[in-house]
């Protein structure tokens, strides 16, 4: 499972990375977590509001920081 946090380094982007890491720990999922900061890369996902969360190349959240429970549900829904 490849998870990417898209963000320009803003406070909320750090928050999203932390929430995602916590959710992964809770579920005991072993996944790679990348933080994408290149604007062209971020835009190529069709994302216009940072931060955004990408699970296996699909954007699941954009423009806000979801709660840990929401991230956990998204991770579970992604099939793991």
């Amino acid at each position, binding site marked *: 499972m490849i998870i990417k946090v*898209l963000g*320009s380094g*803003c*406070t*909320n982007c750090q928050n999203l990375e932390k*929430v995602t890491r*916590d959710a992964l720990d809770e579920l005991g999922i072993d996944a790679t977590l990348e933080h994408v900061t290149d*604007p*062209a890369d*971020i*835009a*190529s*996902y*069709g*994302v*216009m*509001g*940072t931060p955004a969360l990408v699970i296996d*190349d*699909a*954007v*699941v*959240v*954009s*423009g*806000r*920081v979801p*709660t*840990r*429970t929401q991230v956990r549900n998204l991770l579970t829904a992604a099939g793991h």
Partner: protein
Amino acid sequence: MSLLEHMPTTGRGRGLALTAAGLAWVAAYVLNEHLWDWLLYDALGLDSSARSTETIHFFLYDTVKITLLLVLIIFLVTVLRSYMSVERTRAFLGGKREGLGNVMAAGLGVVTPFCSCSAVPAFIGFVAAGVPIGVTLSFLIASPMVNEIAIGMLLTLFGVKITALYIGTGLLIAIVAGWLLGRMRVEKWVEPFVFETRLRGHAIDPAAGLTFDDRIAMGAEEVGTILRRIWPYLLVGIGLGAVIHGWVPTEFFTTYAGPGSTFGVLIAVGIGVPLYSNAAGIMPMVQALYEKGLPMGTLLAFMMAVVALSLPEMVLLRRVLKPQLLAAYVGVVATGIVAVGYMFNAVLAS
């Protein structure tokens, strides 16, 4: 960690929590001045006519008042704007021609929840979806310039007329500046990779699928996020406001930048462009300077220059705009702000 997980789970519980928060807000707002009167003059026995104690009183009173106003404004604005998103705005603007497109983009720039930290992906996303560059720029100019926090604070501190003039002229600058830049055929001054960016997958709309509780929780969280980010600016702004209020003689400003001054607006914009703060931090100074006889047009021009043109945003935009376009952007917007300042002074003086 997240507020949503601590919210009462029944509808009635949430209603009670919101009502209690509202009542606490009103009580704090009403008691604010009395509390400091009592603490400084009665409990500590300070001299209420001394300039230094009056300055301290002003600082404490204003800090609480402005923080309370910010909490309310940020909360309401976030809940209302959670129904909009940059994705929806782009869908509205796709295929719009220049002209009408600029007008719509400026209006949407005000109501769309947007952080200038996302200026780059938004710029690429708009252009890749076929929104003309001038229209995209109208959006990017209006978004920080007509600031929702500034609107809320102007409304409470200065009334409807000045707020309406602020919104109207801010929109006008965004529309005209975006349209002009679009007319200048600026495509050659946009970094080429922007046009080569292909969008894969489909964008998801962050405004969709939220429950009312989600929106309330987002509002409450945004209050915390913004206050944590701006409190240093806020304290510096209120501190300067308190010093101006207590120590600067009225003649000082009216001599150099009073209503009859030719260069007042130019000087205000010249000082405001390199300064970086936010609307909330500027407002206490605007209020104190207004008391000292500075005309509103000059003050609004100062505020617009501070919030609309900021170095951090320029550094970000430099990744998609070449220096020529960036310079044109700053030039056109700054000229617009100066023009609006003089217009404002003329309208309010008559």
